[in-house]
């Protein structure tokens, strides 16, 4: 049996998405800036995708900018807002557990003289609101954080953060990275008060190569890449029309049955969680339980064994997962997220992340729960580290 449990990394493209995209890879190949009908057809398709996606987050179509990825959307949001508002201030606040696509732009800004503060999180990954509040001052222009953490599934209190920012006397832009939360946890940008929101297509059964940035109308921002003007002044370069069309369709499918999909994933999440805790000894859950956790995320450390070897043994059994173990990343350092929530390296080396989609089934979870305990047992047999060592 083949079981795909790495939907946090990428997802299978839904059939309806592929069908929707196909014409734009065949006869509907026009350029959106061309004035003749073939071009305008492409422009309409892009606008429809904007409208569809905007509706899912309570925004207007014109407030959606298509990028090549959520990574690019994050970079544009952070550096674009920082540069455009430098005269107003030079302080940025983010957290210690952000994705590299947020941390790297912040690092670059620090090299340019901006001051970036990285807020701490507690042992479950929740951001320290008190510390965040203390860090806000007259020079703060931007706060950037994930809605849901991609490694451990923590649902952050973005409503509270937004309230804090709105209480300030000057404008502080609020950027939320929703790559891991879109289609799993609802977000209403108007109601919450969000200025910028990053979205990813290939995490919701859309194609790779397209993401989006929601940008509230009136927000002051500069482009970070330059070139030929497209439909989107902030993102030059010919629009990836087929992928954009696919993104729109993927969003439509995900939100058509939002509650049902979420409930389905949550049931499987809980089944997997219960099963692991019942059948495998010496495990450590990372991130919170229940309502404050993404419905599609499960992350455990299996003590006394190492993540990459677990991953490969599961792969031999047809199961795909992710690991934050140092060996598996090219840097040979343990996951910065697990380190930030206080997990010791010995334990973070044994971490496995399982991420669900609406396509996973109960039978698949049964299969995983059958295979996993044996894999762990066998690896523990050949491990020099015995229970109790840590």
């Amino acid at each position, binding site marked *: 049996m083949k079981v795909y449990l790495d939907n946090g990394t990428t997802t299978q493209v839904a059939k309806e998405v592929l069908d929707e995209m196909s014409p734009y890879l065949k006869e509907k190949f026009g350029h959106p800036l061309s004035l003749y009908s073939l071009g305008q057809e492409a422009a309409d398709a892009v606008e429809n995708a904007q409208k569809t996606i905007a509706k899912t987050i309570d925004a207007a179509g014109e407030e959606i900018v298509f990028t090549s990825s959520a990574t690019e959307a994050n970079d544009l949001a952070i550096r674009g807002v920082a540069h455009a508002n430098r005269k107003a201030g030079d302080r940025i606040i983010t957290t210690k557990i952000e994705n590299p696509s947020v941390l790297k732009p912040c690092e670059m800004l620090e090299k340019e003289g901006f001051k970036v503060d990285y807020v701490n999180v507690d042992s479950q990954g929740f951001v320290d609101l008190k510390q965040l509040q203390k860090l806000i001052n007259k020079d703060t222009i931007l706060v950037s954080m994930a809605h849901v953490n991609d490694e451990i599934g923590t649902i952050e209190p973005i409503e509270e953060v937004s309230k804090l920012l709105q209480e300030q006397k000057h404008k502080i832009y609020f950027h939320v990275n929703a790559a891991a939360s879109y289609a799993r946890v609802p977000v209403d940008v108007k109601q919450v008060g969000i200025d910028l929101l990053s979205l990813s297509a290939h995490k919701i059964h859309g194609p790779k190569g397209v993401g989006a940035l929601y940008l509230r109308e009136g927000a002051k921002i500069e482009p970070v890449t330059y070139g030929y003007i497209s439909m989107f002044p902030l993102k030059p370069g010919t629009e990836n029309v087929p992928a954009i069309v696919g993104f729109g369709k993927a969003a439509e499918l995900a939100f058509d049955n939002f509650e049902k999909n979420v409930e389905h994933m949550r049931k499987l999440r809980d089944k997997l969680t219960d099963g692991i805790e019942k059948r495998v000894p010496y495990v450590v859950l990372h991130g919170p339980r229940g309502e404050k956790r993404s419905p599609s995320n499960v992350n455990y450390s299996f003590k006394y064994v190492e993540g990459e*070897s677990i991953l*490969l043994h599961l792969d031999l059994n047809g199961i795909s997962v992710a690991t934050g173990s140092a060996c598996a990343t090219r840097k040979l350092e343990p996951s910065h997220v697990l380190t930030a929530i206080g997990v010791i390296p010995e334990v973070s080396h044994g971490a496995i992340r399982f991420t669900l989609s609406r396509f996973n089934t109960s039978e698949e979870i049964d299969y995983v729960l059958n295979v996993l305990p044996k894999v762990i047992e066998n690896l523990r047999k050949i491990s020099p580290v015995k229970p109790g060592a840590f």
Partner: protein
Amino acid sequence: MKDPTVSVVEGDPQCGDMYQMFLKIENDRIIDAKFLSFGCAANIATGSVTTELAKGTTIDEAEKISIKDIAKELGLPAVKMHCAVLAYKALRKAIKEYREKKSASG
């Protein structure tokens, strides 16, 4: 392994890379070599290759097994070289301990 002649540990779980290596030695010849591993696939593979290379050799021959020998057997990529280094160190540590034990017992 029952009654290993020497058993050494190299690396630690904090690094995510660790071996326990066991050698059975008779008349200065390694008649059996086994290992326990805490680490990735490359870690397990290099442990296996190293013990295989060491089996049947004399202590002097085993001492000549280089990191290159280990890595070449597997075609290790650069990022996994540290596993070969660790296995090599474990083997050398085991040999050294054997020699020390031997001279101590006279």
